[in-house]
């Protein structure tokens, strides 16, 4: 039986022999296991998420939830008021509403409808929002100041969570300036800090959105006038209605600022300059206190409160009459004959003339081959210093200038404070120009020609001054050679810097007597004599352009001469000096009534104060020196 094999039953193939039911179970088990893992993984994922939300980041989300309930709102600090020397209110505050955007609830799609509702430029608003992106979210965006009733209504009707919950109303104090630009250049204005100012050292401590002084006193004394904002924490409901005040950090108001300005003199100077272009500066030469400072045309600072609109700002900037220019400290113009008192003093001090020196004025004089005319065509005849000042004889002062030379003229002009800032506490003061041989080399790389000195002798040529420099210069001369720094804030504790010069008082008196003759002895300012007041002064008219330029001038431009007048009172130991610039006024005697009225207001007030005071109750009712009880509330 070898070779025959009994076929053995082959062991069943593991696959084939496996019962079908058993296979299904295995398949199901593996799949169920897979799904179990997936399910577990999903739940682990979800649980991890919940763990992350509820446990790991609990504090973060809790804080976020509380931020939705608790809001921090700024409490703006009112700026200090600006008062005159007698405590009368020049710049006040009034209560109004400010609209801010809370960045915590800001939605960008709301910007366009908000801008539409408040008549704002949506693009500009968007740019403003962009500027705040780098700031922490608790910084709010100031949107509009001093809301009108209609704007308030729009905000109130739309600030619920169903509309624009990012809008927040804040009660705040806003600046109230005198109307129609009274003292505008002196006071300046406030506005929201811009990017350039934020990056400057001057405003380093300020944050975006804050209100700062932009010009004038508001800017120079910004740190004094600005307060420190407070904060109010409130609990709000889902409609952003305040439910509970959680805490208040009170704002610290800014300090009131008492100026040296005398409001009586200021408003009289303002009225005297109505309709004219120019400036008036009144100083007390004994201490440098500025009693009045006017520049016209002016602007209304009330328009800057909040934010001036672009159209109005453009109109101000492009106005050919330059209403933004503070002519009192920035107009650098030839002083004309008002420079002659300085020339007279220089001639006397240097000994090139004395009170007996005479010159024959035929109506012109020739120097270095060129004829220089006197303002009086027929000439003044023989004149001495006294008459030359009274009649403003140009020929006499050509002679004085020629004898002095440009560098001696420059020496006395600089001694009087010309050619450099007076140091008044206002921003952007200009220095003017006092020409000299060194100055010409420095400026033009050219030598000085003696013929040029002749023009400077009568306040023309390259010589330019500002109205405040002129008042300051004459003030120092009439006090015998003491120049007190002009200043605007009354601070008894601070000593006012002074410059002194050794002057011969007899020479000073000769100059002052000549100026007295200008007004009181039939001089060029005789029309402005004040009976009973020893009012002295000097007229001046100055060309705006050279004769060569005038020949080919633009017919549309106004090249009429500027009128100047500088006066003081009383004659002995003067207490007030006033300089007035009347642009295109053509002659100084048209500027003289401006100074006359300011000095008359000063004189009349002095009389009022020297009179026996009425009974206290009557005094309170009538005296202009009493602080007002009825002034608008801060």
């Amino acid at each position, binding site marked *: 039986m070898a070779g025959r094999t009994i076929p053995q039953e082959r062991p069943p193939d593991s696959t084939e022999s496996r019962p079908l039911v058993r296979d299904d179970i295995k398949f199901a088990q593996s799949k169920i296991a897979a799904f179990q893992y997936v399910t577990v993984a999903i739940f682990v994922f979800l649980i991890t998420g919940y763990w992350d939300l509820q446990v790991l980041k609990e504090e973060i989300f809790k804080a976020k939830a509380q931020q939705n309930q608790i809001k921090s709102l700024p409490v703006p600090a009112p700026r200090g008021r600006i008062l005159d020397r007698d405590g009368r209110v020049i710049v006040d505050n009034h209560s109004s509403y400010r609209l801010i955007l809370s960045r915590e609830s800001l939605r960008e799609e709301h910007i366009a409808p908000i801008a539409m509702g408040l008549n704002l430029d949506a693009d500009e608003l968007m740019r403003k929002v962009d500027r705040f992106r780098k700031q922490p979210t608790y910084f709010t965006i100031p949107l509009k100041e001093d809301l009108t009733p209609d704007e308030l209504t729009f905000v109130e009707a739309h600030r*619920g969570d169903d509309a624009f919950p990012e809008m927040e109303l804040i009660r705040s104090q806003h600046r109230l*300036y005198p109307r129609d630009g009274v003292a505008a250049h002196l006071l300046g204005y406030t506005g929201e800090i811009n990017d350039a100012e934020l990056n400057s050292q001057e405003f380093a401590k300020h944050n975006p959105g804050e209100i700062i002084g932009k010009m004038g006193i508001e800017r120079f004394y910004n740190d004094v006038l600005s307060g420190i904002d407070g904060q109010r924490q409130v609990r709000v409901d889902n409609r952003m209605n305040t439910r509970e005040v959680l805490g208040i950090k009170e704002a610290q108001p800014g300090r009131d600022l008492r100026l040296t300005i005398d409001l009586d003199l200021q408003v009289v100077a303002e009225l005297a300059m109505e309709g004219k272009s120019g400036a008036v500066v009144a100083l007390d030469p004994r201490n440098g206190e500025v009693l009045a400072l006017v520049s016209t045309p002016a602007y209304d600072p009330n328009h800057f409160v909040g934010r001036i609109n672009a159209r109005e700002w453009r109109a101000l900037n492009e106005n050919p009459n330059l209403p933004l220019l503070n002519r009192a400290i920035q107009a650098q113009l030839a002083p004309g004959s008002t420079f002659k008192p300085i020339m007279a003093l220089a001639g006397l001090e240097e000994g090139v003339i004395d009170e007996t020196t005479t010159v024959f004025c035929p109506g012109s004089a020739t120097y270095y081959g060129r004829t220089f005319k006197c303002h009086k065509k027929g000439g003044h005849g023989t004149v001495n210093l006294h008459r030359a000042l009274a009649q403003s004889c140009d020929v006499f002062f050509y002679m004085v200038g020629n004898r002095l030379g440009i560098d001696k003229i420059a020496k006395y002009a600089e001694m009087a404070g010309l050619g450099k800032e007076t140091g008044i506490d206002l921003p952007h003061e200009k220095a003017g120009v006092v020409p000299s041989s060194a100055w010409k080399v420095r400026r033009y790389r050219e030598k000085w020609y003696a013929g040029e000195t002749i023009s400077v002798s009568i306040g023309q040529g390259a010589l330019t001054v500002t109205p405040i420099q002129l008042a300051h210069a004459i003030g120092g001369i009439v006090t015998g050679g003491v120049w007190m720094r002009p200043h605007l804030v009354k601070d008894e504790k601070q000593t006012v810097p002074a410059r002194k010069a050794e002057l011969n008082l007899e020479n000073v008196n000769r100059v002052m007597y000549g100026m007295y003759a200008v007004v009181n002895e039939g001089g060029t300012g005789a029309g402005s004599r004040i009976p009973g007041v020893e009012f002295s002064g000097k007229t001046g008219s100055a060309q705006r352009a050279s004769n060569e330029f005038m020949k080919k001038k633009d017919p549309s431009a106004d090249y009429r001469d500027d009128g100047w007048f500088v006066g003081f009172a009383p004659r002995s130991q003067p207490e007030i000096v006033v300089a007035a610039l009347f642009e295109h006024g053509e002659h100084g005697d048209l500027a003289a009534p401006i100074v006359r009225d300011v000095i008359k207001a000063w004189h009349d007030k002095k009389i009022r104060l020297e009179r026996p005071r009425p009974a206290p*109750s009557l005094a309170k009712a009538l005296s202009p020196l009493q602080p007002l009880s009825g002034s608008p509330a801060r």
Partner: protein
Amino acid sequence: MESFPSRYRNLSVLLLLLVAQLLLLAYQVKTSQDVRLIRLWAVTAVTPVARAIEWVRSGVAGAWENVFVLGDVRAENKQLKRELAELRLKNQLLAAELQTADRTKALIEFRSQVPSKTIAARIIGTGTGANARTVFVDRGSVEGVKRGMAAITDKGIVGKVVAAYPTASLVQLITEQGSAAGVISQKNRVRGTLKAQGSGTLIVDYIRNEEKVEIGEWFYTSGTDRIYPRGLPVGRVKSTREGRGSKEVIIEPSGLQGGLEEMLIVLDGVHGSVPEPETPPSPGIAILPAPPEAAPAAQTAQPVGAQQAGGTQQSAAPPASAAPSPSQPAQASSNGLATDADRLRERYRRVGESQGIVLGTTKLRVPDFNKAPADPPRPAPPKPEAPPPASPKPGAADQTPPAVPKQ
């Protein structure tokens, strides 16, 4: 072979729900809609049913109620009382229908007078919350209703739409805290902002104490809120009181009086005008109305400071007393605010004018600033040839607001 979902149905459903929820959550976050999807769907699903139920309920509720009441009548009077009840029922149904018809007629008439494009809506429910002053109406975004639209009736403003669903909308009543509207008084044209207090009281804010508001005076919408068109009645002044800085004026809203069942939603608002106040009936003695603007102008021109110190000035009148003092007011500015500088400038200006001197210009004549200035010029009396309109119109100043003029 059995498919996976049918084999593992429970697990599949669970997964499906989880995935769906995650997707919906992601969609909700991505779209950042104002209304939650679940709420949107729920409201959309429920409002047709609610509307149907409300329709059935309002139609037959009274009938059912009375039928049940009538079920308890005694046998001996059954017949008579049944007849009586039937008559009463009929009467009530007729009265209700009449009232509805009157209201609908008034609303239709009002709608025809208002130039704004409106759509009538019926209240189908109230908002959630114990003190909620919100109602659901049966018009939604399908009919063009959008969030922020005004809701009004012929009696006055009602509120504004705060959420619009496809077939229904949520209207926030004007008495809900946070509601506000720009208003103007009819008689004195004083502007302010109507605001709802927490208690449902309506006040008009931002009215200065010196402004005149009379009790009973009507307030109308001013249109400045950009929600309610100008010229719609708001309510009458219930009381006024001077407060700190601003006057407290409480308003009785006219739009919510006498129940509220229907309203108009303003789809496209057109501003109208505030009607002139009607003159009260003539009291038998003929009295001409005050000349226009004359009396107030004289008051403003009269310096307050001069009134206060006038007697003293006249009796003493020393030269020093004539010193220009800022205690005298300047001319009223546009916002009524002035500084001492403004007052003093006006005073000095009058000094110059009274002496015929133009300050800074006049030569040879010198001003005397210690002389009292002339009194400010008073406004001229009204010209006799232009008399104000006489024959005051009789008018009824009752609870019904004056008719809204053609806008």
